[in-house]
């Protein structure tokens, strides 16, 4: 311990996991470009991205199933880059679970402790605890094949958690479950994270899953981290067009910056200093407000445009309105109360408005 380091403040504590400059190549194919990543103790981190983006490779590098081509993986300040998974303080919940079909639930859960040659009473007691944590107390002697998908998922969770890993890794933990079960398991995972106080990292391609579970979000694409941060920030202020599109619906607004102002192709002009020339902004559909009465014009804090309703879709809990701006551009607005939507019929002329701070600049679109 270094006593001279100023006490207090998150910044003073070293991160539990630090991945620095890690790359992974398979022959000529690059799976991961240099990755830098920090995860602090107690967080629930989601690695989100489309299939083939390298997220599972990254998880396997953290678990020790693959060695990076370059770079370093540190856990709790210790370099574990060259250690195999059996020697790392991590445990994994596999996609498809990887339960041992020839063992009972209790034998599966107790496997790691029995490999570590813990005494029998300790194993029995910790298995019981782990099963209680995942609410499978009554299933200890069942065979794996006699369990439902959701129950198998919990066994896999208990089998990893019983090892008290510094980091629990979950590979697409909910992908195999149906919608209802998935929602129930999300609640369970949040509870288990809270009760164990552990550090969880999971990989998913499902943005709603990432948002409902994680307090720390890492978006990956084509072997790179596109953006990392608090989920709400990532959603509201995407750095790139990819992130903006991957984590939700978005309106893409190309424009040109001249001096301190930006002119958008759809006809709005607002103050925004920065790099001159072509640029692109994104705007979330729910940031748009619709108004049947008010006339157009620039408001001090935002923009208002006259437009025509092209299509209106009621989607259960919300309404989605497609708007046509005179010059061929379209915008999509989302209204959280579908009853508001009923007021807008195709062909109506309405005013759409948004606050300028709702716009995020993502640079020149490729």
């Amino acid at each position: 311990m270094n006593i001279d380091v100023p006490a207090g403040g998150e910044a003073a504590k070293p991160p539990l996991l630090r991945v620095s400059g890690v790359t992974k190549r398979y022959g000529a194919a690059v799976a991961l470009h240099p990755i830098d990543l920090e995860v602090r103790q107690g967080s629930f981190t989601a690695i989100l991205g489309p299939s083939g983006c390298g997220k599972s490779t990254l998880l396997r590098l953290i678990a020790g199933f693959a060695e990076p081509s370059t770079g370093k993986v540190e856990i709790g300040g210790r370099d574990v880059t060259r250690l195999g998974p059996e020697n790392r303080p991590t445990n994994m919940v596999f996609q498809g679970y990887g339960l041992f079909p020839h063992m009972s639930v209790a034998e599966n859960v107790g496997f790691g402790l029995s490999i570590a040659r813990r005494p029998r009473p300790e194993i029995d007691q910790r298995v019981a605890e782990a099963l209680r944590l995942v609410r499978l107390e009554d299933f200890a002697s069942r065979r794996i094949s006699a369990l439902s998908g959701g129950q198998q998922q919990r066994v896999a969770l208990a089998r990893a958690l019983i090892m008290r890993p510094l980091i629990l890794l979950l590979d697409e933990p909910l992908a195999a479950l149906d919608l209802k079960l998935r929602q129930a398991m999300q609640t369970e995972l949040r509870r288990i994270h809270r009760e164990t106080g552990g550090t969880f990292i999971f990989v998913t391609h499902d943005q709603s899953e990432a948002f409902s579970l994680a307090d720390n979000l890492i978006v990956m694409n084509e072997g790179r981290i596109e953006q990392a941060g608090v989920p709400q920030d990532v959603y509201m202020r995407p750095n790139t067009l990819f992130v903006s599109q991957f984590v939700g619906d978005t309106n893409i607004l190309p424009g040109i910056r001249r001096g301190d102002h930006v002119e958008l192709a759809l006809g709005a002009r607002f103050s925004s200093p920065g790099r001159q020339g072509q640029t692109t902004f994104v705007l979330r559909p729910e940031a748009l407000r619709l108004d049947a009465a008010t006339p157009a014009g620039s408001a001090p804090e935002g923009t208002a445009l006259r437009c025509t309703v092209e299509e209106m879709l009621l989607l259960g809990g919300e309404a989605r309105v497609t708007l046509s701006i005179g010059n061929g551009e379209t915008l999509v607005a989302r209204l959280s109360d579908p009853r508001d939507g009923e007021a807008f019929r195709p062909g109506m002329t309405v005013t759409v408005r948004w606050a300028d701070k709702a716009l995020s600049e993502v640079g020149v679109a490729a």
Partner: protein
Amino acid sequence: MTGWPRALRRGLALFPAFGILTGLFFVPIALLFAVSFWSVKSYRLVPGFSPDAYARTFSFYGPLFISTMLIAAAVALLCVTVGFVFAYGARFRSGRYGDLFILATMITLFGGYLVKIYSWKAILSANGILNSALIWLGLVDAPVTWFIFNRGAVIVALAHFLLPFAILPIYSALRNVPDITLEAARDLGASPWATLVRVVLPQCKAGLVAAFAICFLSAAGDYVTPMFLGGGSGIMLGQFIVSEFSTRFNWPVGAAMSFSLMGVSALVIAAVWLAIVGRRG
């Protein structure tokens, strides 16, 4: 076809195959079983119900019976062990070459029963390739004679013939072992050895026992291999079943020897099954 009841369609589809099975297998085996209780008087078969043929099998051929079972057990154990190593290597340790090793197995499987025995004779005999190579290399001065005409030669040749029959069922059992169960074991701290013993082997027990059964039965019933390679110490019961049938014309004893062989083999296999797969579900 149209409108025929399902049960009738199935019955008709099964009829040819099971007709042949019944007429050329169940009936003749049953007849052979009946013959095993007959007796022979001055080269004529006398129907009856006498246990004499079995008595002769176990008294006169008792020691040979035991040594045949020992050879079969040695061959089966060798095949299962080596077959497991090969199948495991092909399944988990060969990457994309795994299929190539299985192809090599298939080629060996279909590559001629007599040809293999002949080849082993050519390899092991006094003026065979092994000896001529050893002499040519200057490792020995005179041909080594103990390569052939003994129990070891029979075991090696039978193991070579039966190895594909062990590899294939074990490989097919290993294909059903999910890769992630191996990763999970490793993730939970298991060494490669612990993973093998506690995760891989228990998941392919049935394949191992099937491989043992096939190899044991085939080895126990073989007579061509010992005839060519066995010499004095490598004789097996099959050779005498043949001679009881052909030269001595004592069908009851030949039949009794056949059924004793199959019966004892079945007991051995059942014991192995119980010991390895055990009583639980």
